[in-house]
């Protein structure tokens, strides 16, 4: 008798595809809605603390920009030759963070990575707010903010046009297009969820506000067809867009003639770095958020682990790029290039360079350890290091390449002033203020998308206990109450039922689920889950009332949720003979496992072990 369950604490198995369920604890659709909407109805106290701190930092931003406009860019540490200084460091930093959102929403969507549904909404919001912060910096860096419209191709009294051969102008188009498309993508995804908020709104103001932005959405199947086509195409266009934007940002550097900037590796290196820093920021935001908002069952350990793997991959790519820059500096034989890189690692800014290398190359390597990448606390700390490291990467690129250029007579050292610091801290204030407002008023989880990847969303899903006579020849039960959520809850946990539903699925002609998911979940697909043959004693056990069973199932599921929240999940055995463990699967009828014992008299097909959990 083989009990193969992958070594993980996530017990719930999607009976349709036989993999770990993305949403743990088998909630109903309604429970998902409530779980996401509850923090909007009654925000946690900590929200106010964060909001007030963020708004004060935003005030600092306003103050430093106002002083800048009054006094001029001389308040910053920018000098000649380091003319770009902190504003451009911060610009590239924020644009980089703004890449994970579209990557999660678009690229993972195209690859059919269903786990994205739990995190895409918040990461898209993060993207938009990060790009807003990014756009602030070139705007104030020009010094004369009132002529910032000059890069736009507008007919004007000077009869002049922008220079379309300049990468800085490409940047204007790339970043503004990126912002617009990200905003559209985010809003289109939000429409069904705003409709949900509208329909459960209790006050007239909320109903009106959500109602306007929901555009009268009524979930029409004819609308969904167009909606899904539009969403897919937006994803298909946003994917090359997100790659192009950071490539073009890197052209700002790479197209110039400066040693240290003039390299062909910059576009892929910048894109990898952007994804790296963006996922770092997503983890920084989501790990506390999922805890405070009690969303651990929707944003599971598996989601964090997947993001950590992306960080490991892109962090390693960034490390490779660092090494390759040095190799090319040596291999090219160009003395200026060689000097810049030797100066980078050993010169005035060596401290910044080695902070960057420690944070970006060494930190992600901890993710190789499973214990670390499945621990939210450890990932949170790692993500902070990633954020710091990626800020230093941009600082190193800007400062070290500029401060020692061709003539030693023009060398200088850049150090930030108080106003540089104030502006940078202030931009974090802007970012977190917007993010706080977002979590306060909009669903931070894509409710409709999460529901759509739950097992019971599949129209071919049949809660065990009411078989569909069309699909399984062995069906003997009749369809009773169609929505007995308890039946769903009890049934899905039972291993027998998973194998049965898989069988019934295979017999369907038009099933299109095979292509859905290629995430690397271990083994559940190949090795069907085989559970106990039902023991005779178990059969003879008295069957509790359905309501009582439902209650039991709910309590057990709740207990399991609590276990999920714990950080040391692997200790909990899935199978256990010890009744104190409350296992999910058990031979001992006294345990009251989550699936209900079969009634012996009703069904005589016990030989294939199929009929546990059939309900009357």
């Amino acid at each position, binding site marked *: 008798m083989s009990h193969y369950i992958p070594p993980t604490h996530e017990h719930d198995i999607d009976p349709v595809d036989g993999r770990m369920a993305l949403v743990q604890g088998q909630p109903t659709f309604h429970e998902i809605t409530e779980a996401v909407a509850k923090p909007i109805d009654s925000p946690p106290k900590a929200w106010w603390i964060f909001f007030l701190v963020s708004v004060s930092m935003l005030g600092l931003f306003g103050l430093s920009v106002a002083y800048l406009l009054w006094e001029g860019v001389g308040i910053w540490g920018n000098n000649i030759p380091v003319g770009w200084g902190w504003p451009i460091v911060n610009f590239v930093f924020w644009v980089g963070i703004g890449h994970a959102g579209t990557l999660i929403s678009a690229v993972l969507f195209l690859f059919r990575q269903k786990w994205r549904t739990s995190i895409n909404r918040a990461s898209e919001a993060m993207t938009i707010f990060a790009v807003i912060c990014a756009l602030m910096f070139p705007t104030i860096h020009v010094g004369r903010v009132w002529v910032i419209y000059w890069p736009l191709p507008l007919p004007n009294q000077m009869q002049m046009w922008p220079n379309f051969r300049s990468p800085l102008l490409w940047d204007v188009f790339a970043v503004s297009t990126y912002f617009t498309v990200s905003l559209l993508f985010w809003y289109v995804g939000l429409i069904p969820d705003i409709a949900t908020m509208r329909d459960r709104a209790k006050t007239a103001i909320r109903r009106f506000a959500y109602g306007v932005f929901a555009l009268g959405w009524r979930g029409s*199947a004819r*609308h969904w067809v167009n909606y899904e086509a*539009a969403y897919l195409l937006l994803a298909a266009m946003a994917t090359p867009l997100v790659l192009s934007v950071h490539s073009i940002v890197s052209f700002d550097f790479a197209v110039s003639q400066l040693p240290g900037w003039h390299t062909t590796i910059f576009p892929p290196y910048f894109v990898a770095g952007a994804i790296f820093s963006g996922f770092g920021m997503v983890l920084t935001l989501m790990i506390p958020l999922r805890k405070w908002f009690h969303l651990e069952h929707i944003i599971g350990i598996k989601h964090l682990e997947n993001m950590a793997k992306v960080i490991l991959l892109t962090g390693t790519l960034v490390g490779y790029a660092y090494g390759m820059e040095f190799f090319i500096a040596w291999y090219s034989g160009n003395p200026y290039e060689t000097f810049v890189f030797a100066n980078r690692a050993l010169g005035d800014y060596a401290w910044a360079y080695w902070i960057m290398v420690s944070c970006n190359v060494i930190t992600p390597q901890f993710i190789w350890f499973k214990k670390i990448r499945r621990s939210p606390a450890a990932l949170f700390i790692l993500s902070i290091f990633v954020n710091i490291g990626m800020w230093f990467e941009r600082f190193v690129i800007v400062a070290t390449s500029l401060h020692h250029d061709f003539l030693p007579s023009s060398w200088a050292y850049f150090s930030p002033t108080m106003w540089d610091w104030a502006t940078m801290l202030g931009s974090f204030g802007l970012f977190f203020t917007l993010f706080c407002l977002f979590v306060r008023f909009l669903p931070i989880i894509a409710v409709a998308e999460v529901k759509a990847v739950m097992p019971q969303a599949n129209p071919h899903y049949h809660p065990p206990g009411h078989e569909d006579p069309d699909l399984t020849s062995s069906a003997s039960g009749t369809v009773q109450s169609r929505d007995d959520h308890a039946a769903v809850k009890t049934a899905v946990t039972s291993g027998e039922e998973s194998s049965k539903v898989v069988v019934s699925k295979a017999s369907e002609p038009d099933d299109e689920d095979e292509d859905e998911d290629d995430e690397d979940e271990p083994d559940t697909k190949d090795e069907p889950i085989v559970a106990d043959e039902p023991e005779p004693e178990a059969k003879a056990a008295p069957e509790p009332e359905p309501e009582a069973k439902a209650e039991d199932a709910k309590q057990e599921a709740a207990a399991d949720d609590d276990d999920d929240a714990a950080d040391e999940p692997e200790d909990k055995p899935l199978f256990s003979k010890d009744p104190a463990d409350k296992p999910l699967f058990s031979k001992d009828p006294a345990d009251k496992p989550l699936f209900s014992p079969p009634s012996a008299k009703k069904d005589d097909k016990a030989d294939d072990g199929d009929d546990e959990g059939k309900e009357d």
Partner: protein
Amino acid sequence: MPKRPKMYGLLAEYETPAALYKACERVRDAGYGAWDAHTPFPVHGLEKAMGIGPSLVPWIVCVLGFSGAALGFGLQYWTSVIEYPLIISGKPFNSYPAFVPVTFELGILLGSFGAVFGMFGLNRLPTLYHSLFNSKRFARFSDDRFFISIEARDPKYDPDKTRKLLESTGAVAVEEVED
């Protein structure tokens, strides 16, 4: 005697995607035209059960995307070659390799407008008032319930026969909705 209000049609409520899917096949096979299903999320394969054809959005995106790219290149060519020719870094007026990024970005931008606003146009959004919002039950379409609405303007619509059809599909509730 007060005049009976004009009816929009019938609204049937279902509790699972599977029930809705089967019911949609029945309504489709009964030959109705002016009807719709309402779900909290896109139900996989429902368009087949309802007999809805493919979306027109891709065509709109295609046309607008390529127009955007043409517009982007045209803008750069016109300003750099015709309207204000200026030698910059000794490059030719028509420096087409340098024009690629802006051409690309404008293609994406207009294509995205096509996707979003094309979708709005095809779906007639925003429609802030709709008869279905008169139904109290209908508010659950965005939470956990599944609905079929059949409009009274459908030629096959008959208050009693249509209601019988819907009731026979396993609906948990069937009600008339005022226009």
